[in-house]
């Protein structure tokens, strides 16, 4: 039964959000797809229709493949650090350690509330290869730190680590809540049967908390790729030679640095497609609650 008696009140309550979404999200989304078929430079009064030309030039540019590869590497690193590791630690904290749960939660969540610009700045100094504290400690044992910000490959790892500093704690508390919903009797019984911990984790915990797990996995990709924009822009601007750029940063650079609006819009449209696939996976697996055990 409807608790709001008059239907128009419901629409009235939805209206403010709907108007803002329509003007600043849905219309812009459609307009970006439209821009991806035009040749334009963000300033010129004339736009020229070029069909699929922007997509073609995007795919003919070897830079794109480098950036897609970087995006993939970012996703893999983020998933390991921000999905797998907090998952494992949440399990351990809930069922192996038990004590100190509150304190660990409080401290590990703390970086999530701090600006990623602050995080980037602090890690730039902490990991400074010449005068940073880590470099000084390593120098004492005879190891020189590489200049990571200009080393292909390594730069991806460090920028992912900076992003993870912020993202880890949030994912950790969400996963901890998911894991703690598993009836502890199930885990205790498995322990009494001497089933090794790694099997308890992979065969009992993962399936029984899979809705939360998949949610965090998908959000790590969707938000992680966008979060990483900040350290990229603040530390490397996508360099050296696009070695640290990803799809999000490249679209920004095309639009607001190189003024290639069409190519930027084409790349954003592709990103939107990728995220739409993830959205459907989310609805398929999370909203319907995958729960293999029992039901």
């Amino acid at each position, binding site marked *: 039964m409807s608790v709001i008696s008059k239907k128009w009140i419901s629409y009235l309550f939805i209206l403010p959000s709907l108007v803002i979404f329509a003007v600043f999200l849905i219309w812009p989304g459609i307009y970006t797809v439209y821009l991806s078929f035009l040749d334009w430079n963000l300033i010129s009064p004339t736009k020229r229709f070029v069909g699929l030309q922007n997509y073609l030039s995007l795919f003919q540019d070897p830079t794109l493949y480098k950036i897609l590869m970087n995006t993939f590497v970012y996703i893999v690193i983020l998933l390991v650090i921000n999905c797998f590791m907090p998952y494992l630690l949440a399990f351990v904290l809930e069922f192996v350690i038990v004590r*100190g749960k509150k304190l660990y939660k409080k401290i590990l969540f703390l970086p999530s509330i701090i600006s990623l610009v602050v995080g980037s700045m602090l890690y730039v100094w902490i990991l400074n290869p010449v005068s940073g504290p880590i470099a000084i400690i390593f120098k004492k044992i005879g190891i020189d730190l590489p200049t990571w910000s200009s080393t292909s490959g390594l730069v991806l790892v460090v920028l992912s680590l900076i992003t993870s500093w912020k993202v880890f704690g949030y994912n950790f508390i969400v996963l901890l809540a998911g894991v703690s919903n598993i009836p502890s009797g199930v885990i205790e019984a498995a322990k009494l049967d001497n089933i090794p911990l790694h099997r308890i984790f992979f065969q009992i915990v993962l399936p029984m908390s899979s809705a*939360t797990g998949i949610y965090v996995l998908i959000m790590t990709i969707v938000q992680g790729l966008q979060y990483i924009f900040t350290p990229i822009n603040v530390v490397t601007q996508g360099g050296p030679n696009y070695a640290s750029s990803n799809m999000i940063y490249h679209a920004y650079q095309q639009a607001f640095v190189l003024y290639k609006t069409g190519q930027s819009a084409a790349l954003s449209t592709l990103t939107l497609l990728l995220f739409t696939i993830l959205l459907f996976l989310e609805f398929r697996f999370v909203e319907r609650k995958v729960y293999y055990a029992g039901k």
Partner: protein
Amino acid sequence: MPENKMEWRRIIWHLVLIVFVLVALFPIVFAVSNSFKGLSESYNSILQLIPAHPTIENYKTIFTSLPLYQIIINTFTVATVVTLFKLVTSYLAAYAFSFSHFFGDKLLYFLFIATIFVPFTVTMIPNYLIISRIGLLNNIYGVILPQLCDATGIFLLTQTMRTIPKSLIEVSRLDGVKTVGILRDIVFPLTRPAVISIGIMFFINSWNEYVWPTLILKDRANFTLPLILQMFISSEGGTNFPIAMAISMVTMFIPLVLYLFFQKYILNTFSQSGIK
């Protein structure tokens, strides 16, 4: 399994978690420590966490050499206006989604939640054009305008309101209480903890926001804190390091204070955000 082995296992996992704790906290301790050191001390004894000659000179410098008061007011204004609007719009939408059925309700809800999956690159060019067209470039209200509602807020508040028993509201409806009365006297008191923690997260996220403001704001006097901080980053370490630490401290101060006071609310609400 022998109790001894269990105990060892616990200790080892505690050590692993302590490593994570150190990684989480070290940057903050590092910033506090170096923001109170002079330039030469910070270079010569970077490893010493407690300054030998503590000084507040860095803080004096940033407040005199930058329009920092104005920048703090800008950041505060953006965060406050964004938070209030997001709370009101999300609250009303969540109320409609939770307590009534109307044509298109499921589709609209799906559409709202789906917006979480739209990458910001998809909206940045058109929104930049809108803000520029209405003359709000280089103005904090240009930063504020596209952010007056929030899908995550709608989602979390709807989740919370759906836990309220419908019968509670039906009874007051039968007693002739109007929608406004139900909202104010029944639903709001029951959802207050969620409203507080979601509001605080809106505020903190807006306070920290970087990407959209960098597109809109051009002059220092109009900057928010993350933008001014960005000017002090150099991967070669060329700029004044303790000064940069002092600005970092100013940027994180308000979020840290809010977290210290409201951590219980925040942790409870956000733990639940992945559970449907």
